[in-house]
Every structure is written in structure tokens, then in C-alpha cells.
């Protein structure tokens, strides 16, 4: 890779079929780091599901910006849903209950906190902006 940071912008709307497009774009972006495709796909799918299911935007617009730096990947996830900070407001995941009573909420954010090294959220001009950073060896 050359010295320029590699950047990609992926736009998603309110169609779950956009997940296929997302995966194609990630396969292309991470062609030199194929091991990152699935973890990053997971992180973005979880955020995107939340945007679709809970964001309440009439015309959902999601913008994912990926930036590959020398030793880190930066993921900026933006949507125009209602103000929501997943880092503090998401449900706590149920990691221990027995099968009969096990509930599944909150897992997405749990994955994100486990699979990235830094997370920050801000609400700017009616847009939710989540910035995630993952160190790359």
C-alpha cells in the first residue's frame, strides 16, 4: 500500500438488501487485509440493523467511512435517525442466563466494544456519528 491513507465511503439506505452491497464493498476495500472483512462487516451490520429497527428516520441515510491508516483502521458510522448513543444507551447484553429466558438485545454494541479499541459518539447537526478505531498489527 502507498503512503496515502486509503479511504472508502459506503452509503446505505433503508433496505436490508444493502447488506449484500456492504459486503461487496468491504471485500474490495480490505483486499489486502481479508481477515478484517468479517469482523468489520459484523460491526457495521449490527449498527445498520439498529438504524433500521430503532432509528425512526423517514428516509434513512447511513454513511460509513473507512480509513486505513498505518497501524489502525478508523470507522466512522453516521445516520440520520433519532439521537442515540449506543455506547451508553444500548441495553446490557444477556451473557449468562439459561436458554429458556435468554434475551438477545444489546449484543451488537457488545461486539463493537469487544472488537474495536476506541469508541466515541457525538450528535452533530441532527446526525449520529460514531467513530470506532481498531488497531492493526
Amino acid at each position, binding site marked *: 500500500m502507498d503512503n496515502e491513507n486509503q479511504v472508502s465511503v459506503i452509503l446505505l439506505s433503508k433496505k436490508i*438488501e444493502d447488506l449484500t452491497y456492504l459486503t461487496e464493498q468491504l471485500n474490495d476495500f480490505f483486499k489486502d487485509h481479508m481477515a478484517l472483512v468479517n469482523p468489520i462487516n*459484523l460491526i457495521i*451490520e449490527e449498527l*445498520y440493523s439498529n438504524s433500521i429497527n430503532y432509528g425512526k428516520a423517514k428516509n434513512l441515510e447511513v454513511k460509513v467511512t473507512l480509513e486505513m491508516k498505518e497501524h489502525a483502521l478508523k470507522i466512522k458510522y453516521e445516520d440520520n435517525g433519532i439521537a442515540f448513543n449506543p455506547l451508553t444507551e444500548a441495553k446490557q447484553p444477556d451473557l449468562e442466563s439459561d*436458554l429458556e429466558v435468554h434475551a438477545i438485545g444489546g*449484543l451488537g454494541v*457488545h*461486539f463493537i466494544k469487544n*472488537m474495536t479499541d476506541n469508541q466515541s459518539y457525538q450528535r452533530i447537526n441532527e446526525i449520529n456519528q460514531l467513530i470506532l478505531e481498531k488497531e492493526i498489527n
Partner: protein
Amino acid sequence: MLEVKIENKSGILVIEPIGRLDGLSSKQFLEDIDKQILKDSNQAILNLEKLDYISSEGLRSILTTAKKTKSLGGKLVLCAPRDGVKEVLDISGFGQMLGVYETEAQAIESM
């Protein structure tokens, strides 16, 4: 894209999802295996050897199936996940909750 192979091995359903179990495919997956469990057997093994990817939507369909088999007096166990899928099972606590075996033979043995 997801393809599902289901085989009845001496009364145990071996379900093999091939491809991606995500927000696009999990609903159909659930419908397919739900029917089979009602019709065939409540003892089921999910062989994950050819599953490339799973998200929490996929986990949700597995959880629903596991609850169903248990409510019918049976059970569902998992086997042979690849590294990426195994990591998701570990982080989510699902692996611990349901039981993950390294091979299908070990999973069958456990039933």
C-alpha cells in the same frame, strides 16, 4: 447468501448452514429448520463447518430454534465453527450456553 442442508442421522437432525447467516438470511433459515424440527426430530445439531459469517440476527435464529427444541423436550448443540464464527459465539456467550463441540461426531455422541 445461505444454503441449508438438513439430514436426519438416526433420529438426530444435522443442520448445515452454508454461507452467511445474517440479517438477510436468518428469517428464511428459521422458517426452514422450524418446519423440519416439528416434522422430524427435536434433537438437532447445527454443524457450522461451512458457515462463513454470523451476526446477531443469525444468533437470534439459533436462539429461537434452541428454545423450540428444548420446549419440545429435545435439544440443540453446535459443532465445528470456524475461527470467525467461533469468536462471535464466544463473545456473545452463546457457545457456552448451548455447547460447542469440535466435531460432528462428538456432538452426536453428546445427544
